[in-house]
């Protein structure tokens, strides 16, 4: 763990510290998904961090873990964390703020988005009712622990054992499957999901198509804001949805052990 942060690129910035830091860093640095990622942790409350050594990740994987102390709303701190070159930012819930922490987390996400609109922001949400507000503030992905808990409990009640399937999918450990979202290459433009899926099966690709995402880019307005895509997600397409031609800006949702990379080398 180091306090001076060298210039980084393609790293992950984690804002706020709680009991999830260790596991997240471990997943990002020892998982099988490509190179281990450098992680920069922004800690608002130094005493809190130092009082919980079990929150600290164990080093490993050949990647760096750096800690900076200060507020995520501080632009200088974000610059020190090389936010402009970060791949993603995870904003965790601040345990000192109680159930209303979503407000502070969202503001941190806004600050990060302002510094780098291209960074992929992932926010931990406490109250699922706030989900809609986050979408309007351009937070890319939201993880609501409460919702996950509710859904998994219901799933396990209806279909005993199904949580093991999710556990397998969510782990980045080597030898486990995950869900990937590779882009549809030019060579597969205008092909339908049914055609692509059939080709995958017949060619024995090491991934299983589950569905697709059609991204509709919205024209940029003036300023550095990124173009926001309206997403149309279709998992397990029914009847006619299997025969919609897929074009550029579409992604295929696949299940695989390793990232499939360029779909063009397997298909087309």
């Amino acid at each position: 763990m180091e306090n001076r942060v060298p210039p980084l690129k393609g790293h992950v910035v984690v804002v706020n510290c709680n009991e999830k830091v260790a596991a997240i860093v471990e997943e990002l640095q020892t998982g099988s998904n490509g190179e281990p990622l450098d992680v920069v942790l922004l800690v608002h409350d130094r005493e809190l961090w130092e009082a919980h050594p079990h929150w600290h990740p164990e080093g490993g994987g050949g990647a760096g873990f750096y800690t900076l102390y200060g507020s995520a709303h501080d632009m200088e701190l974000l610059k020190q964390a090389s936010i402009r070159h970060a791949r993603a930012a995870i904003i965790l819930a601040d345990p000192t703020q109680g159930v209303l922490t979503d407000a502070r987390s969202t503001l941190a996400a806004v600050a990060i988005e302002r510094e780098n609109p291209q960074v992929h922001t992932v926010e931990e949400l406490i109250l699922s009712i706030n989900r809609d507000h986050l979408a309007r503030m351009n937070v890319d992905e939201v993880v609501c622990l409460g919702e996950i808990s509710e859904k998994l409990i219901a799933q396990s009640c209806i279909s005993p054992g199904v949580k093991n399937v999710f556990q397998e999918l969510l782990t980045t450990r080597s030898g486990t499957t995950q869900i990937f979202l590779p882009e549809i290459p030019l060579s597969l433009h205008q092909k339908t999901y049914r055609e692509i899926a059939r080709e995958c099966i017949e060619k024995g690709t090491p991934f299983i198509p589950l569905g697709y995402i059609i991204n509709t880019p919205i024209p940029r307005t003036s300023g550095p804001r990124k173009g926001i895509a309206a997403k149309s997600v279709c998992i397990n397409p029914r009847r006619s949805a299997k025969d919609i031609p897929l074009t550029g800006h579409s992604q295929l949702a696949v299940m695989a052990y390793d990232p499939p990379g360029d779909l063009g080398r397997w298909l087309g």
Partner: protein
Amino acid sequence: MKRFSDSRQPRSSALATTLELFIVACIFLSLVLIPLEILFPEKHLFFWRMELVFTAIFVVEYVVRWGLAEKRLIYPFTRYAIIDLLAIAPTLLMVLAEHFTLFSVARSVRLLRVVRFLRLLRFLKFLRYGYLLYRFALHLRIRFSTLRDQIQANQLEKIFLYAFLTWVIGANSLYLTETHFTVGEGAYTGYWESYWHIIIVLFSGIEDKEPLSLPGRIEVTILLIMGICFAGVITGEIVSILVRKIQRLGKITLKPRESRLEHHIIILGHNKHFKNIVRQVHAAMGGRHYILVVSRNADSLEKEDEDVYKRVMALKGNPLDPAILERMDLDSASRVIVLSSSMRMEDNPRDIDNRSLLKVIAVYGRNSTVPMVAELQTEEALAAAGVLDGVEFLVSRHFGERLASQAVLNPGVTTIYDSLMTFSDDSSEFYTVPVPSYLVGKTFRDAQLHFLDDDDEAIIPVGIDRSDEACPNTRFTLCPQAGQAGLSSGEMVFKEGDCLVVIAYEQPRFVAVSREALWRGRELCRN
């Protein structure tokens, strides 16, 4: 233990359930015709025409079932097909006897009478619809006992019983007194007139027909006072019922003391996840199973949605209290969910987990076979809890951590997982289902192509499960075709007893329902 029972039938959709209810009604009505023919022989022609209509319906049902059967050559020799044939054969024989001289021997009156009574074999058709009728009867029973509890029927019954006894005793007493002590006609010297006059005295307080004798007047005075008391008590009871109804408006229905739930889902404890869990379970089950929530504050829980909470009941009490555990009807429950709940603000995760584990132990001790899922907060508790077989423990924090990492490594993937975790009409979930017989001996690839081409149901096979039936999804392989990481080509051939892990919008229709599991409550009825 053989994995699948012999008595299986394909799942039915909501339309098919309606048709089944229609057939049940036809069976019942056709059976009623048999005694009516004996009681009203003059209407024989009308009953015979009705019998022909019902027989035509049963013949159509037989032919359709035969046509839809998986193994058409064997179907006529199966148990239910034989019963269906026995149900229509007597009438067909009678029709043939009417029209063909070859069957002249069947025309003998005595034999026709025997054949007519053979129609009673239609009772056996109820066996096929046994579970459907059972569910219907269960719902009626629970509704009735809930209504009785809400109107405090026991109290009202007692009051009306006392009022009735007072009336009868009062009328008889007045009659005897008046006839003994008076000479000539009076209001109470007629026996049945006494009853009328006493009821007026008791419930209106109007004494317009005075007794002639002094003892009679004393008795009527007593009855007048008792009438006032009854009026007061009945009014009080009705008011208390109305007040209670108003107080309970918008709150979850309380489980009546005498009522017994079956094949229900129990939720022990209450926390902020409760409402969404009920919503999810309702979405998955279509509201077909009762949900019983047990917690200290269960009586104050509010209904968010009338439709979702129609079959949700509350039992107030400590889930660890043996008396409360008895009232949960654990032996007939289908599933148990244990939620983390804190009793005090200063409770830490360890205390919360210990409380949850105690609830799990309490339930497990009474019924170790009911599938249970328990929410935990800490990994430490998870490690300790692993000794309990058949109980699933969930530390949702783990899933949250991994999902956050996945969101970084595969941007956009949380939407996919959210969709797969949600029960709704337009999202798919994971199901582990027995491999259909037509795929046994085939490969995973064959299954993929089969379901890709099947537009009637959207199903994607994603893995093979070879776990023990008691512990599903413990020995499964996702993406089995993926070379070294997956299974070998030999392992990808389906064998009897294998299961498919699929993504589907609902439980695939090819999955036959185990009658035994349905009756035991292990299989949840989802349509």
